[in-house]
């Protein structure tokens, strides 16, 4: 399968400006700038503790950077809370699965749609008018777009904690998609998956990014270099809270500083497996 080329110099969907994030006296991020263009898969890589997840948390609002600004679709969102950012079309998955274990797959995914359900208590209690319309629409969307895309038909009514890890990861992606995001933050979506599951997940990410129905811009934090270099349009390399380079996979692979700081002498393509 040929992967679509990077989008033309398109509009910027997300911009981080001089982000500083300290924990005590440790600088997790020391003045990081990032620009993500609409339609691309922009990966963030770096050794353990480089600050990748901190960066994700700053983008989606779990952390408030001490200095610097975050712009989403041209709007300054630095002071917005995570749920307010979600309403603007920003969604994420977590490195460690954050699902409701006792609930079914369907319920977990439905939860991701709460921002699209606006009908009131009254109409909800009699299931008429707006509520009914919204529910039908929501059901159609979840079934036709998410369950079908992620191929989780056979587990839709199972409780999440009974599922194998690889499927839970898929459900988490499903919930993030239920929001119908414009920008999706994927924090290590491939960690802990077996080879087949990795291939499936990489395919889903490409589908979400390329399929006309979705066209979601993705920020991907991931250690699996093989996949990162295969599917990313741009790669941002972080080390000890500092940007080393931000460029196409090819540029990054040939960058001496990256090789030295992050990959040692090993071939960039030598993935963890």
């Amino acid at each position, binding site marked *: 399968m040929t992967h679509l080329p990077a989008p033309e110099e398109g509009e910027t969907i997300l911009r981080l400006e001089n982000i500083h994030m300290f924990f005590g006296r440790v600088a997790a991020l020391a003045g990081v700038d990032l620009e993500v263009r609409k339609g691309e898969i922009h990966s963030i890589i770096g050794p353990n503790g480089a600050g990748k997840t901190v960066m994700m948390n700053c983008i989606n609002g779990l952390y408030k950077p001490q200095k610097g600004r975050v712009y989403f679709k041209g709007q300054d969102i630095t002071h917005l809370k995570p749920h307010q950012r979600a309403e603007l079309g920003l969604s994420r998955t977590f490195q460690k699965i954050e699902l409701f274990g006792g609930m079914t797959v369907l319920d977990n995914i439905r939860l991701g749609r709460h921002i699209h359900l606006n009908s009131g208590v009254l109409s909800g209690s009699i299931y008429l008018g707006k509520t009914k319309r919204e529910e039908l629409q929501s059901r159609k969307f979840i079934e036709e777009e998410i369950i079908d895309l992620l191929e989780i*038909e*056979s587990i839709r009514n199972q409780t999440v904690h009974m599922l194998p890890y690889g499927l839970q990861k898929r459900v988490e992606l499903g919930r993030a998609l239920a929001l119908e995001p414009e920008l999706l933050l994927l924090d290590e979506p491939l960690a802990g998956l077996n080879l087949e599951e990795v291939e499936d997940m990489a395919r889903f990410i490409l589908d979400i990014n390329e399929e006309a129905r979705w066209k979601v811009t993705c920020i991907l934090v991931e250690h699996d270099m093989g996949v990162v270099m295969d599917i990313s349009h741009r790669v941002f390399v972080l080390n000890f809270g500092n940007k080393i380079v931000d460029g196409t996979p090819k540029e990054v692979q040939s960058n001496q500083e990256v090789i030295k700081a992050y990959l040692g002498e090993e071939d960039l393509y030598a993935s963890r497996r």
Partner: protein
Amino acid sequence: MVASPLALEITKDLTIPKLFLSQCRKYGDRKVAMREKEFGIWRPFTWQDYYDNVKYLCLGMVSLGLQKGDKVAMIGDNRPEGLWAEMAALCAGGVGVWLFQDCMMEEVKYIIDHSDAKFFVGETQEEVDKALAIKDQCPKLEKIVWDDPKGMRNYTHESLISMKELQKLGRELDKKDPGLFERVIEQGHGDDICLLFYTSGTTALPKGALLSHWNMLTMGRNLMSVDPCYDTDDFVSYLPFAWIGEQMMSISCGLQIGYTLNFPEEPTTAREDIRQIGPHVMFAPPRLYEGMTRQVQVKYIDSTWIKRKIYEFATKVGYKVANCRFEKKPVPISFKFLHWLAYAAMQKKLKDHLGMSRLRHAYTGGAAMGPDHFRFFHALGVNLKQIYGQTEIAGISIVHRDGDVKFDTVGTPIPETEVKITEEGEILSRSPSVFQGYYKNEEATRKTLIDGWLYSGDKGFIDEDGHLVVFDRSKDVMTLSDGRPFSPQYLETRLKFSPFIQEVWVIGDKRPFITAVICIDYPVCGKWADERKLNYTSYQELSQKPEIQELVRKQIVEANKDLPTPAKIHRFLNLYKVFDADDEELTRTSKLRRAFVENRYRLIVDGLYSEDKIVHMDTTITYEDGREQRIKTDLHIMDV
């Protein structure tokens, strides 16, 4: 309810498309022809929808140059679109060639090339990838048709066309030349070939059996005259179309009766979907029934004390009643009452869970089924019957009759079918459904088809009630140490009644004693191990745990009971993997390829017949995408 009269009298002039046309006219949009579960909802298609879809697909194929006798290869899960494509090919005078969904590249290439297929119809990107990969090596292949757009956005190969586009071409042709569809169908004749079936050879490369419309239609008529179905019935189509049994039910019988076909959402949801539909008739190979038995046994082990007691009571009564029926003795009055109680307390619920509550006839065929499984279903009140036949006789020649079921036989011939046994004990059959020969294989045809008799290669005899008893494949029959013939299949099916054992391979031809290679059932044994706090990380490790070996040993001791000493299993080992069709150990219909495994696991066989306690294995396994992995392991041999 009256048996629905067959749609048309079956003559040599009738073809499957002609029958299809007459049924579409009869039912139109007043009756549902098929349902598919999609996006969690059952979506109906009327006979009119069926007609429209087939018509435009057929005309699309015609406009792309499909001619009478051209082969159309198809691969995909059971979906209405697959059936439409097949019917469309038949309507255009083409010949349908189905491939198993999980066929590896080599098999796909062999069949496409050997069958001279001109069209390839695949469901998703996965099938398209297979077709594109072999396209250059199969020069006769012209067009690749696909259905599901998922993942297809970057495919631009000039031979690719979507089903929607194909139907569009069909619509244009219909506008230009109205009535063409009906005229094309009119040209067909009953003796034309309609299907080319690649039989899953247990020994050699697959052979292509040619079946005519007349073969398929007479087979359907004769089966339906034994066990009538009604057009109000439901049937769930979830087994591969490349299996003759599925063609038999979905096409031959389905079309003649007009019952509703139901397609599950995904192969993985089939069991739940079957339960929702509650079919009236079911035909599946033994492994599916074995799977159900295992499922029930495992649930039984897991359930509470009171439920287990109720289950034990109900099965005891069920077995007693089933035995009375097998022996054709009246059921005692007291047991009639107890049976009612057993039904109300357990059987009703359990049958509902298995999707069998409305089931009138359940058939098993395609491989041997153990008597234990057979009795299990009868004890549950399921009318399970054996079907015996080959692809070469359109799937069926023998079936059990209602009220005349014997669990060690396969029944009596269907109408218009004769069965006899040669002096060597080989089973021969003759009927209007006997095939037309193997495609491009004169020699095999000459050996199989002599004076209209089909030589099955199976050994068997006819018992005092006129029932056929199938012993085993002639070449598989073993000679025991005391010189008696013995069927390895018999022991294997017996062992497979244990929920802990998934596959068995019994060895012992002209050997001092019998041995077995066991593939444990991973989920069941895994759960058993979990409950006992045994650590394991893989199938390989679990299979070699002493506790699991002891567990398997107990199952073998149980199966060895009541067998004469030379027929008892003396030694065994647990294999580090399950036999798989991708490794060519099983056929695509899950039959063990003995010659192949014997060659592949020669080390194991030698080990089992030596003094050794351990076999060192060093081998490779193949994944579905063709990748290979090397495995090095030690296998422990156990004495029973």
